[in-house]
């Protein structure tokens, strides 16, 4: 397993597409989540007033709200990026036929996939750290530039938040990897995954949230459960949708862990049994 993990690490590290994905994620957090909102709130004319005062809105960017902000990013752009990352990692092997080259080396198929999933886990950990660090730096910069003061969350809350971030990103990475193995095509895996994420779950979830049958189904979906975990962390201003979670944070954690196991096991089953090459 270690040998496969080392081989996967080399491939993951040297693939530019992976670094571009991470770059997009960090740029999104720094530029869109923090800088854009900071500039809009700071520079907008005083005559334009929304329901929430600018001074209060700005506090969303400060360290006191650092956790919900970074977790909010994980639920949208973070999920999409990690899904693409996972799908590329597995589907490309079929596209390039390198899966054939790998499987005629010594390790078993289970060991090969185990090494790949370990490498994906390590990469997800790195992305979580980078997201956390980028958001922390941006929060610190926002409060410093504003000349205000804001308290950081406690160490315990930070640790829980990091765990929540890591769990959610891991689930989306595993989902992408599973789709890559199931479809054996990067385009199909990414297309299918993003359609589910943004249309299937996000759009239908918000439009039909109050339909009884849909509501019951939504309680089992990974995005909804991730949102429930994120909603459990304290925030200065909470929007209405986020404040009415369909499930508890505890159930959210359990559901995501089940998804992580299910995606891993299903990936392994398909990878073990499927023929490589031929028609």
């Amino acid at each position, binding site marked *: 397993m270690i040998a496969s993990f080392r081989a996967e690490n080399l491939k993951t590290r040297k693939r530019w597409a992976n670094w571009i994905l991470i770059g997009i994620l960090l740029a999104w957090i720094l530029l869109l989540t923090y800088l854009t909102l900071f500039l809009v709130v700071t520079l907008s004319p005083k005559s334009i007033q929304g329901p929430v005062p600018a001074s209060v809105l700005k506090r969303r960017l400060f360290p006191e709200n650092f956790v919900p902000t970074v977790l909010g990013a994980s639920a949208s752009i973070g999920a999409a990026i990690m899904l693409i990352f996972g799908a590329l990692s597995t589907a490309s092997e079929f596209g390039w036929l390198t899966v054939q080259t790998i499987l005629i*080396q010594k390790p078993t198929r289970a060991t090969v996939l185990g090494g790949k999933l370990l490498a994906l886990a390590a990469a997800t950990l790195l992305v979580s750290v980078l997201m956390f660090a980028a958001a922390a730096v941006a929060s610190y910069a926002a409060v410093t530039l504003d000349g205000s003061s804001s308290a950081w969350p406690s160490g315990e809350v930070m640790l829980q938040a990091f765990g929540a971030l890591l769990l959610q990103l891991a689930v989306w990475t595993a989902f992408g990897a599973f789709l890559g193995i199931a479809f054996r095509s990067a385009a199909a895996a990414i297309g299918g995954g993003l359609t589910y994420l943004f249309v299937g779950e996000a759009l239908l979830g918000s439009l039909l949230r109050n339909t009884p049958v849909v509501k019951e189904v939504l309680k089992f979906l990974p995005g909804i459960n991730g949102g429930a975990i994120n909603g459990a962390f304290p925030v200065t201003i909470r929007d209405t949708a986020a404040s009415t979670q369909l499930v508890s944070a505890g159930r959210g954690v359990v559901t995501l862990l089940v998804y992580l196991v299910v995606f891993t096991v299903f990936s392994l089953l398909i990878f073990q049994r499927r023929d490589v090459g031929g028609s």
Partner: protein
Amino acid sequence: MAQTLAVETHGLTKRYSTGVLAVNNLDLRVRAGEVYGFLGPNGAGKTTTLRLLSGLLHPTSGTAIVAGAAPGTPASLARLGAMVETPAFYPYLSGRDNLRVVARYGSVPTSRIDPVLKLVDLTDRARYKFKTYSTGMKQRLGVAAALLKAPDLLILDEPTSGLDPQGTIEMRALIKELKQGGRTVLLSSHLLNEVELTCDRVGVIAKGKLVAEGTVDELRARSGGSALLIRATPLDQARRLVESLIKPEKVRVDGDALLLSIDPSQAATINRRLVSDGVDVSELRVSEQSLEDVFLELTETPQSPHPNPPPQAGEGNGRPAGGGK
């Protein structure tokens, strides 16, 4: 004397989910230390067989032992180096990094990389990305990857495919060199010349079945070995006369000549009869059958549904392995 077998299959069959029967009840025996040519036209089932032997495909039925163990198991893969179909590597990695990846999967020390790069003459281009490689360079990198483990058994699928004449000659020399080290090489090809020049024994596959096996000479002999060529005028009359002397199915028209699949010692009798009946015989000689003739004969004839039992290890009799020939 029984010989050690590097590859042994019994009734190996692969039917794809699409219903295509790619390999049909294949009994294959490759002896340790030989270069075995796996010959067949495109779509005959060569690559599917090699994929089955490498553990990439699961057989529908039948068994195989490859390098002493079941295909795809760590014990078998540890002694097997293979390049199946096209050389497949990561386009964004250099040749050397691709070999590093392969070495890590195979738990092979990275010190093996430089010698194999040198062996396939890729040292100078090792730092360039795989996507910039020419077909020949990709092919050579594939062979280098297959050799990384210093395997006992090497499976090469169409190794000269896409190579220029110089590259083809070098690849043949490399295969011969590999054999000198006592290695078994299972080489698939549809190029008869290549097989004739490099292989100790040949197995011919058609429509998923092994239809013949033996040395090139044995296969020639098995297909009649040589034929009697007669150039005569008028040809139709000559053919009628010859068919009255021997079985008509042994007579074939080849351009402006007749090819008779008979013992050449009958030449004098036939010549006398033709001349006495007023046919002008301008040429009468023994024509050696090329491997191409044998190949065409073996692969174009419809095969019966079940092959004959395989020979015992050590046999090399150019037997018909299928089709009841």
